[in-house]
């Protein structure tokens, strides 16, 4: 068990901290992966854990700090990414190097040879380290970390430079290590890899803890399969795809990123319609962290916004002190138990139910007030959450549900369009959404953290139940001790009037968001665009060919059949802005954001705007 509490690495002279109050646990028997972009603070965190760097915060390995451990190599295997690629002196042979370290650790020489076998380096053991490839260096360093037969592993970017085959081997090794009761904490930059390796994924963003999720939830909420299509006639294909129920957004100059429609279907569709394709490939993109709770903004834009959250801490042990591991485990178990039915529902088939299907609005969400949705106040700037008056808001939720039910009734009367095949987990549902505040956007320093109204409600109330936990799932983050253990959750479907205006302002301030809504797509689709929540990461973290990260600036065109304006499925993102230039004018007061009719009107305008 590793308990990491409040790790902070601050620099002088006003530089931003490399790590700010990082707190989480790595439990035995589990692989915990620190996920983050380059510069997110993963390596710094690991170096702080073994106290190679000066910083603040404590890391306890079974109750002791690293310095207090008498023979740390015997208990903790540490693999740190040094500035150099070599695992050892380049003139040394691998076997000699490992035997030397075995001497230092105090294990017999035979152990070094065994590890060379295990790490598939036995064949090259008598060659000099300088001739090794990066993957071999990594494996040799891993062998060195494993020399003392430790029960805990701290691995910094262990799969960096490994070939796919070796990655697979490494994943199997880590799993078996964890299964035998070991504690593993590894870092990685690739979300797919985190999903493959980890039992628990801790996401770091710019030195701050962004999310702490079990891997099931991470896969559901943060990974998003897409099909990348390129060709000369993408506008036409986009129309067809949207008619098929796919979500389309632009990717690069002549590319589409399609989700919701399988690769084979896309190819078939293109063939039938005589559309030339240059590329058709699967990929997985990372979705941003969605914060569980609405947070107030420190800027002046939030004048109309009322933030209502549920104060926790009266219930079952929400006052989680960071050192109270019992309470932490308990709450996480509860959260997992609540999620389980939702996952089971969506598991059998990944497709969304037909729109005509009637389902209760609250499918996938545990009844009653949500038990654990601690507010991750550490991830945001302190002033924002501190300024919030966190107060329960039961009426908002009730109101939201009535709205949703009304819209659902409306939905049910419409003939079901072709059900989309292979709808991604976060797929649209016939249930009308209720706007919520989404504070996922990690705005640049100094700007407003208040994001926009998003598809949060839609996701949470989908029939598939997939999105039901998208907000709650991220909420596994533990509240920091300094924050007064105040936990909050978004008030479910709580409609927050006035957010539309904020959103519109935001869009007006960021023309890049709007400029990507090309006329072709708007024309063809006839839907108002739905947002993809912006990636918190840096531009190069996104597999986008454009200058900007795809998730941050582009918008997913909403799935749905081509229907006349005013169709019932419109309202996935009521708070979302319309086509470029529209949003500000359309929603002056922002109160219309919650109005489903307002949404229909906007989408109609979007049709007019794009039609020729």
């Amino acid at each position, binding site marked *: 068990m590793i308990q990491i509490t409040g790790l902070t690495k601050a620099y002088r002279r006003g530089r931003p901290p490399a790590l700010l109050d990082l707190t989480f646990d790595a439990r035995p028997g589990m692989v915990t992966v620190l996920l983050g972009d380059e510069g997110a603070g993963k390596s710094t965190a690991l170096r702080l854990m*073994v*106290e190679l760097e000066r910083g603040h915060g404590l890391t306890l390995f079974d109750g002791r700090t*690293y310095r207090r451990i008498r023979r740390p190599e015997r208990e903790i295997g540490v693999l740190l990414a040094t500035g*150099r690629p070599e695992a050892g*002196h380049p*003139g040394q042979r691998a076997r000699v190097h490992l035997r*030397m370290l075995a*001497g230092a*650790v105090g294990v017999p020489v035979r152990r070094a040879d065994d590890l060379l076998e295990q790490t598939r380096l036995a064949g090259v053991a008598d060659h000099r380290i300088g001739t090794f490839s990066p993957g071999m260096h990594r494996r040799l360093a891993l062998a060195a970390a494993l020399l003392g037969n430790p029960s805990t592993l701290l691995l910094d970017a262990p799969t960096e430079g490994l070939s796919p085959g070796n990655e697979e081997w490494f994943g199997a090794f880590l799993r078996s290590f964890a299964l035998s009761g070991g504690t593993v904490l590894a870092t990685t930059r690739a979300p797919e890899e985190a999903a493959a390796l980890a039992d628990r994924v801790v996401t770091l963003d710019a030195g701050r803890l962004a999310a702490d999720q079990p891997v099931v939830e991470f896969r559901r909420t943060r990974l998003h399969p897409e099909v990348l299509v390129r060709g000369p006639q993408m506008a036409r294909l986009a129309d067809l795809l949207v008619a098929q129920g796919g979500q389309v957004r632009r990717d690069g100059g002549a590319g589409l990123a399609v989700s919701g429609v399988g690769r084979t279907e896309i190819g078939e569709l293109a063939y039938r319609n005589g559309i030339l394709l240059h590329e058709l490939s699967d990929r997985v993109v990372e979705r941003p962290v969605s914060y569980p709770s609405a947070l107030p903004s420190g800027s002046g834009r939030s004048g109309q916004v009322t933030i209502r959250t549920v104060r926790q801490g009266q219930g079952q042990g929400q006052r989680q002190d960071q050192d109270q591991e019992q309470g932490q485990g308990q709450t996480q178990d509860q959260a997992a138990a609540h999620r389980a039915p939702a996952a089971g529902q969506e598991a059998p088939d990944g497709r969304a139910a037909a729109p005509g299907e009637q389902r209760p609005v609250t499918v996938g969400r545990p009844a009653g007030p949500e038990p654990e949705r601690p507010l991750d106040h550490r991830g945001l700037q302190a002033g924002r959450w501190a300024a919030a008056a966190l107060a329960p808001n039961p009426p908002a939720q009730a109101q939201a549900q009535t709205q949703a039910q009304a819209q659902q009734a409306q939905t049910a009367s419409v003939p079901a369009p072709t059900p989309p095949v292979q709808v991604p987990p976060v797929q649209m549902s016939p249930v009308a959404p209720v706007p919520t505040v989404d504070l996922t956007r990690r705005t640049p320093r100094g700007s407003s953290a208040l994001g926009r109204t998003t598809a949060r409600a839609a996701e949470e109330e989908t029939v598939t139940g997939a999105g039901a936990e998208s907000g709650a799932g991220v909420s596994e983050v533990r509240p920091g001790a300094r924050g007064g253990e105040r936990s909050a959750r978004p008030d479910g479907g709580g409609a927050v009037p006035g957010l539309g205006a904020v959103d519109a302002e935001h869009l007006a301030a960021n023309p890049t968001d709007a400029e990507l809504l090309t006329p072709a797509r708007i024309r063809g689709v006839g839907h108002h665009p739905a947002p993809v929540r912006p990636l918190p990461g840096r531009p190069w973290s996104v597999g986008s060919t454009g200058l900007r990260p795809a998730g941050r600036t582009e918008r997913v065109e909403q799935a749905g059949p081509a229907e006349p304006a005013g169709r019932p499925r419109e309202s996935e993102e009521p708070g979302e802005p319309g086509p470029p230039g529209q949003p500000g004018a359309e929603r002056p007061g922002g109160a219309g954001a919650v109005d489903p009719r307002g949404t229909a009107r906007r989408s109609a305008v979007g049709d007019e705007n794009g039609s020729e």
Partner: protein
Amino acid sequence: MRVVASEVRRLCGVRSTWLVAAGALLVNAAVAAFTAARLPAGELAVPDAVRSVAAVVPVLPLPPTVLAAAVLGALAYGNEARWPGLPASRVTLGRRLGALLAKSSVVGAAAVLLAVLTLGVDALAAWLALPAGVDASTVLDPSGLPAAPFAAGGPGRPLAVFVVLAAAGGWAGLLITSLVRSAVVGILLTGALPALLEPTAGLLLHRTGRNWPVWVRELMPFQYGLDLVRDAADRTAGALDGVVVAALLAPAALLVLAAVLAQLRRRSL
């Protein structure tokens, strides 16, 4: 003990160790043969013999063997600092000091070994290259060697001092590198050290004692920097006291202190 074993493995496993040793032997043999071949005819003086066997090159601040030992010491630290096998295992001060101690002992032993080896090789090379006119009977007195190998005036004492100097050179290289963390800089600074210390020590000895300069010349004929001492040998008379010895040992103590202090603030070697 584990650290010493690992350090021995490291020293033997690195190619540069063997390269340095082989290079030192070769250079020593060549220089010894060259100096011996140019010895003047007649009876062989002890300082000349010692210089020849120690393979001293006048332009170098230190004999090649001592320089090689310094390189070994510098690399012992520099490589470890540059490619730490287990960086997290040197976090505590005790472990770093233990590693430093182990490195000093291993480097010192290696330096002594290297000095003895080079002396043997040099003696052989000088013996082979000795011109016919040189009479080496006084230096290689077969009757005197077993009885009094370290008699005053004989070659035994300077050679013993030479071996000690090699070990000191290795330590100096190690400790100076521990301050600067770079093997190259450590070697350069070690090479520059005699240029700083010899005039100071010579001046100190000149001011304090009558006999000291003579002894020093006799003991260290391979340090050309100490030639300054001889000129003013008997000008002043004074007693040898502890203060002078302390002053002479001060640089070494200062270096050790600085190395330990440097480790206090570090997290890795």
